[in-house]
């Protein structure tokens, strides 16, 4: 386990909207990380880049390369030539990302979306005051205060959102850290260390284990060179690099090393064939950045909502302005009236509410190890309809683990869970004793010292992934491996190499009476079997006959079919007489037998799925989210993992499976019958976008294997083209979002026509009737019956009438009337407040009855309701009532006037929901369901 596991998953949302690519960071950045940082390439370039690389340097011979790049593989470039090329191509560095300055980011938060409407309101308020002030120096400051409040709301929510975002982005490691700093280059015939930025095409560079590859290079010579391409592909499995041309695809061939990837071991010499932005990683960087220009769904929704609200506010404002003017109000007063209506219609609190609830959600997600980079991403996750997941490290534990064993003609299953503490296979067999010895001894991996207190599974190991797996496996089962190795001193060893395909070591035995040497060997099963003449069954050596060989084949195929990497193990006790104590073992001449060995067993390794993944996949499925696996891994492994985590469910088949079952060629199978599909990177390369769409639409369970980074983007875009054919359905919202279908980006608007109509023309009307009832009640009980009020306004507002008669013949001064009016206002406000409680409760569900939903499941709602009532009480009673806002104390009964109307609102909505449930698809459903 060379990698340390980071506990934080980062969810990239700026870049890919519907698609959540989770990936396990390992301190280095994966290519997705580039999206944020590099955002400058133009659209048309993207299309070009998206095509697979047309690189043919890997096909050329050394000579051809020398000619092409005008270099010499021994002498390297001359300094002058290099300087020339450097001047022409520019430095070997990725173009720095165009960082938006902090000020711009901040200002964006300040003026984005809703804020602009609020700013407009604030400015209008100030203008209104300006006009008033110019007319009358003693004009009241009400409008100034309102403007200030509006501005403060915007500024505070802006600062809050900015702070939240800045906090999250800080956590993201900088991309620039992954770029190599120095390179060992041959120029003018001598080796020298130069900054990696100065490399040019044609330079001959040398790399060794631990280096980052300083540019895209064509390998000219290699000694056991292995690279980790995870920065490019996400797959951390070491890949060997040699000068052989092994694959048409430049990304697959072994003789190309890529900029920013790491050389794990060995050395290599290579010729620089691409530098800077022209390297693969450079192209991906700009490619990926191109994906991120989309607005997040919540931003789109809020914008849509702002349009509706602004439209309604402005039109109502204008209508009332016209009415006011025609009622002979002075124009200035009418303008203030207009502003008042617009400001009143703008939900000032929404911005803050959205920000707060998003950041609360983000916090909650952070607790579950999910880092949200961008606040708006939270909602985006809610409308996720497809998740494209990487395999390694996301679905799997990102470490090889022993999954199965085969000995004594039987397959045993090993525990692959994260801690492996439940190994349940039969360990009593003598064969297992031998096998365990081989596993322990024929292994070069070691624990790094000083980790005694660390649990075995978390210990850091020096060695490759398979050996690490075997080491930990034997440590878990048998305890102190290092001690055991000491007792069985190693006298000779041949490490694994790709030509031999086996690993061998010779040990003294721990039994002091047994002077024989033990030769242990592991490797590719077929190669191991070739070298064996006997097989151990229940501790007894038996000749390897046809039937045992067949049994071996079956087991091998079965384990291979599970996508597991199978290793064979064999041993041989060297006869004491031929190989005495002092026998000089020579690994070069191989002066010891490597045939007629005794076959002991097979072990198969896999990167097992995380134990939480199958459940997560099921949950996503049940929520209507399609889960697609995208991996650079082999199709068989990919499919096996997909099956084990439920991405391909147990009973669904691919086209190939059907063909196999029916025993017909693949072409004859009706593709529609196959629920699942495994698409190979090579197939994908041949596909047109239409064909890809077809795959994405026709199959519910899809695995993409052997994909290159470019193809990952093609897949993502393919997914984004799909409009999922699902709509919002039955809810039990509020408490468990996972039971809700993902929101359909285009159809399920946050605010749609039905909701707007229902709010303004149904509930809104009901509320205003309830509020007017309270208003009329106040007036009537104080002396002005409704009949008297009609057409009374001009007299009522006349400052020169101080003996206005009410319904009882009483006479009122202007101030007495004014104060009564304020009581009316307060009663109106309180009535709205009371009805808003009903409004809040009915909006808990869209379809289900409140009785089905339950009133008390969401306790926070009640906190909200109570605080709303308290605020109203303070406004009315507190501070001896607030004169500036024209609030007055109210007689207790006026607080309850609107209660019947609140009940009416609730009953009406229950009726609406009942009919929607009763008659789905009806006229009612279409018009009343929002």
């Amino acid at each position, binding site marked *: 386990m060379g990698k340390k596991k980071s506990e934080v998953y980062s969810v990239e949302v700026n870049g890919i*909207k519907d698609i959540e690519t989770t990936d396990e960071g390992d301190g280095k950045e994966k290519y997705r990380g580039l999206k944020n940082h590099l955002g400058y390439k133009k659209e048309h370039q993207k299309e070009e880049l998206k095509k697979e690389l047309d690189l043919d340097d890997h096909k050329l011979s050394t000579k051809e390369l020398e000619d092409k790049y005008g270099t010499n593989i021994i002498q390297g470039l001359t300094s002058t030539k290099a300087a020339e090329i450097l001047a022409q191509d520019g430095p070997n560095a990725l173009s720095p990302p165009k960082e938006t300055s902090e000020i711009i980011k901040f200002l964006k938060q300040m003026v984005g979306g809703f804020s602009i409407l609020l700013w407009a309101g604030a400015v209008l308020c100030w203008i209104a005051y300006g006009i008033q002030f110019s007319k009358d120096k003693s004009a009241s400051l009400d409008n100034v205060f309102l403007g200030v409040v509006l501005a403060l709301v915007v500024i505070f929510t802006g600062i809050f959102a900015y702070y939240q975002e800045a906090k999250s982005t800080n956590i993201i490691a900088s991309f620039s850290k992954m770029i190599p700093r120095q390179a060992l280059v041959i120029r003018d015939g001598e080796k020298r260390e130069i900054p990696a930025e100065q490399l040019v095409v044609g330079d001959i560079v040398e790399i060794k284990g631990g280096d980052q590859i300083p540019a895209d290079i064509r390998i000219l010579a290699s000694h056991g060179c292995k690279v980790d391409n995870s920065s490019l592909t996400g797959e951390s499995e070491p890949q060997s690099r040699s000068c052989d041309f092994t694959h048409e695809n430049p990304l697959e061939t072994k003789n190309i090393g890529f900029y920013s990837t790491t050389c794990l071991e060995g050395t290599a010499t290579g010729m620089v064939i691409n530098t800077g932005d022209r390297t693969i990683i450079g192209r991906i960087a700009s490619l990926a950045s191109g*994906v991120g*220009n*989309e607005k997040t769904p919540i931003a789109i929704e809020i914008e849509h909502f702002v349009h509706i609200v602004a439209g309604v506010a402005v039109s109502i404002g204008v209508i009332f302005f016209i009415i006011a003017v025609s009622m002979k109000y002075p124009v200035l007063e009418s303008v203030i009236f207009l502003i008042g209506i617009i400001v009143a219609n703008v939900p000032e609190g929404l911005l803050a509410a959205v920000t707060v609830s998003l950041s609360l959600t983000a916090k909650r997600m952070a607790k579950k190890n999910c880092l949200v980079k961008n606040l708006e991403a939270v909602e985006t996750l809610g409308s996720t309809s497809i998740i494209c997941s990487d395999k390694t490290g996301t679905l799997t534990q990102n470490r090889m683990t022993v999954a199965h064993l085969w000995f004594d003609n039987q397959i045993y299953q090993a525990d692959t869970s994260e801690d492996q503490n439940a190994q349940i296979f039969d360990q009593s067999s003598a064969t297992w004793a031998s096998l365990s010895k081989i596993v322990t001894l024929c292994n070069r991996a070691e624990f790094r010292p000083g980790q005694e207190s660390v649990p075995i599974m978390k210990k850091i190991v020096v060695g490759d992934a398979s050996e690490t797996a075997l080491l930990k496996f034997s440590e878990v089962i048998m305890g102190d491996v290092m001690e055991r190795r000491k007792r069985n001193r190693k006298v000779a060893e041949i490490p694994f190499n790709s030509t031999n395909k086996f690993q061998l070591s010779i040990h003294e035995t721990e039994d002091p009476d047994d002077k024989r040497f033990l030769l242990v060997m592991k490797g590719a099963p077929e190669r191991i079997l070739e070298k064996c003449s006997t097989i151990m069954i229940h501790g007894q050596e038996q000749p390897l006959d046809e039937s045992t060989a067949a049994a071996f084949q079956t087991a091998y195929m079965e384990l291979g079919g599970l996508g597991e990497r199978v290793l064979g193990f064999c041993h041989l006790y060297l006869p004491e007489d031929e190989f005495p104590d002092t026998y000089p073992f020579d690994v070069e001449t191989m002066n010891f037998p490597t045939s007629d060995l005794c076959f002991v067993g097979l072990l198969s390794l896999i990167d097992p799925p995380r134990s939480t993944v199958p459940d997560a996949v099921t949950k996503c499925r049940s929520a209507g989210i399609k889960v697609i696996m995208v991996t650079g891994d082999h199709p068989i492994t990919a499919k096996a993992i997909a099956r084990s985590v439920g991405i391909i469910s147990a009973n669904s088949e691919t086209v190939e499976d059907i063909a196999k079952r029916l025993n017909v060629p693949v072409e004859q199978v009706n593709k529609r019958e196959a629920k699942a599909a495994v698409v190979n990177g090579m197939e994908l390369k041949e596909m047109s976008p239409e064909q890809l769409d077809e795959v994405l639409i026709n199959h519910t369970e899809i695995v993409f294997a052997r994909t290159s980074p470019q193809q990952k983007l093609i897949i993502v*875009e393919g997914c*984004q*083209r799909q409009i999922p054919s699902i709509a919002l359905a039955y809810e039990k919202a509020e408490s468990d979002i996972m039971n809700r279908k993902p929101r359909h*980006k285009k159809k399920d608007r946050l605010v749609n*026509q039905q909701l707007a109509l229902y709010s303004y*023309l*149904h509930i809104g*009307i*009901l509320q205003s*009737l309830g509020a*007017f*009832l309270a208003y*009329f*009640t106040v007036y*009537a*009980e*104080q*002396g002005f*019956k*409704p009949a008297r009020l009609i057409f009374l306004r001009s007299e009522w507002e006349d*400052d*020169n009438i*101080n*003996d206005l*008669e*009410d*319904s*009882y*013949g*009483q*006479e*009122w*001064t*202007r*101030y*007495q*009337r004014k*104060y*009564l009016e304020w*009581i009316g206002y307060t009663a109106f406000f309180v009535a709205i407040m009371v009805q808003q409680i009903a409004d809040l409760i009915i909006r808990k569900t869209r379809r289900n009855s409140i009785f089905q939903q339950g009133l008390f499941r969401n306790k926070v709602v009640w906190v909200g309701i109570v605080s709303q009532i308290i605020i109203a009480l303070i406004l009315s009673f507190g501070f001896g009532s607030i004169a500036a806002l024209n609030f007055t104390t109210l*007689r207790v009964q006026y607080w309850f006037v609107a209660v*019947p*109307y609140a009940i*009416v609102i609730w009953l009406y909505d229950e009726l609406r929901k009942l009919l929607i449930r009763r008659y789905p698809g009806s*006229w009612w459903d279409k*018009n009343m369901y929002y």
Partner: protein
Amino acid sequence: MAALQEKKTCSQRMEEFRHYCWNPDTGQMLGRTLSKWVWISLYYVAFYVVMSGLFALAIYTLMWTIDPYTPDYQDQLKSPGVTLRPDVYGERGLQIFYNVSDNTSWKDLTQTLHTFLSAYSPEAQEENINCSSGQYFIQKEFHAPNHTKFSCKFTADMLQNCSGLTDHNFGFEEGKPCFIIKMNRIVNFLPSNNNTAPRVDCTFLEKDHKDFKPLEVDYYPSNGTFSLHYFPYYGKKAQPHYSNPLVAAKFLNIPKNKEVIIVCKIIAENVSFDNPHDPYEGKVEFKLKIQK
């Protein structure tokens, strides 16, 4: 992704809008077909009819709970307002400016008084009874015709020199004008608890006129009192012919060619004149300027 990033041109938008207004393929206008429009309109008509009915019912219930004779609450009417006749308002409050020698400048003022007093003619007061008790006229029962309560007569002649009967010009011509002070009606209001009749007291506003001689006033009826038998008022329904008692104040020593501020207060136990918000509660203030 491409689908989401589409940028529409203006003409496309116009075209879309036109399509929205009238879609020839589906016969939809503004997103609905004609029949759908009819249905939705019918629904809204029905909905609003029901809602109006509900509201009417609520108002009806409200009216049903309300006493027709006495208002439920008189939270704002603790103390009556006071008004002045003639009432000419300037920028800030009452302001009566006139020129003695220019009779057009006060003709309107006296006309206002005549009009105002026409409601106090004997004919207008015919339905009311004569009272002279000087005590509160408490009526528990409805003994007057048509199930009403009696109201006391107040006729213009009670204002004597300011009745407009003897001096048709209310003293305006001679620079000693009459002003009529009226106290607002409040149902069941008793000016005092101890049988002291409320009295009008007019003075120059002190702080502005320290150097003046005190204002000399003739009050009609004598002493400037509102006789207690006009109280309490039982409301429009119980006393349909009730008319407020009046007090006339004739100012005798108004300096000429000078703007003065006069305040007339009602002196009574239950009348307050110190509400800072309401300039007309328990008092009336006015500017007067008589030119010569």
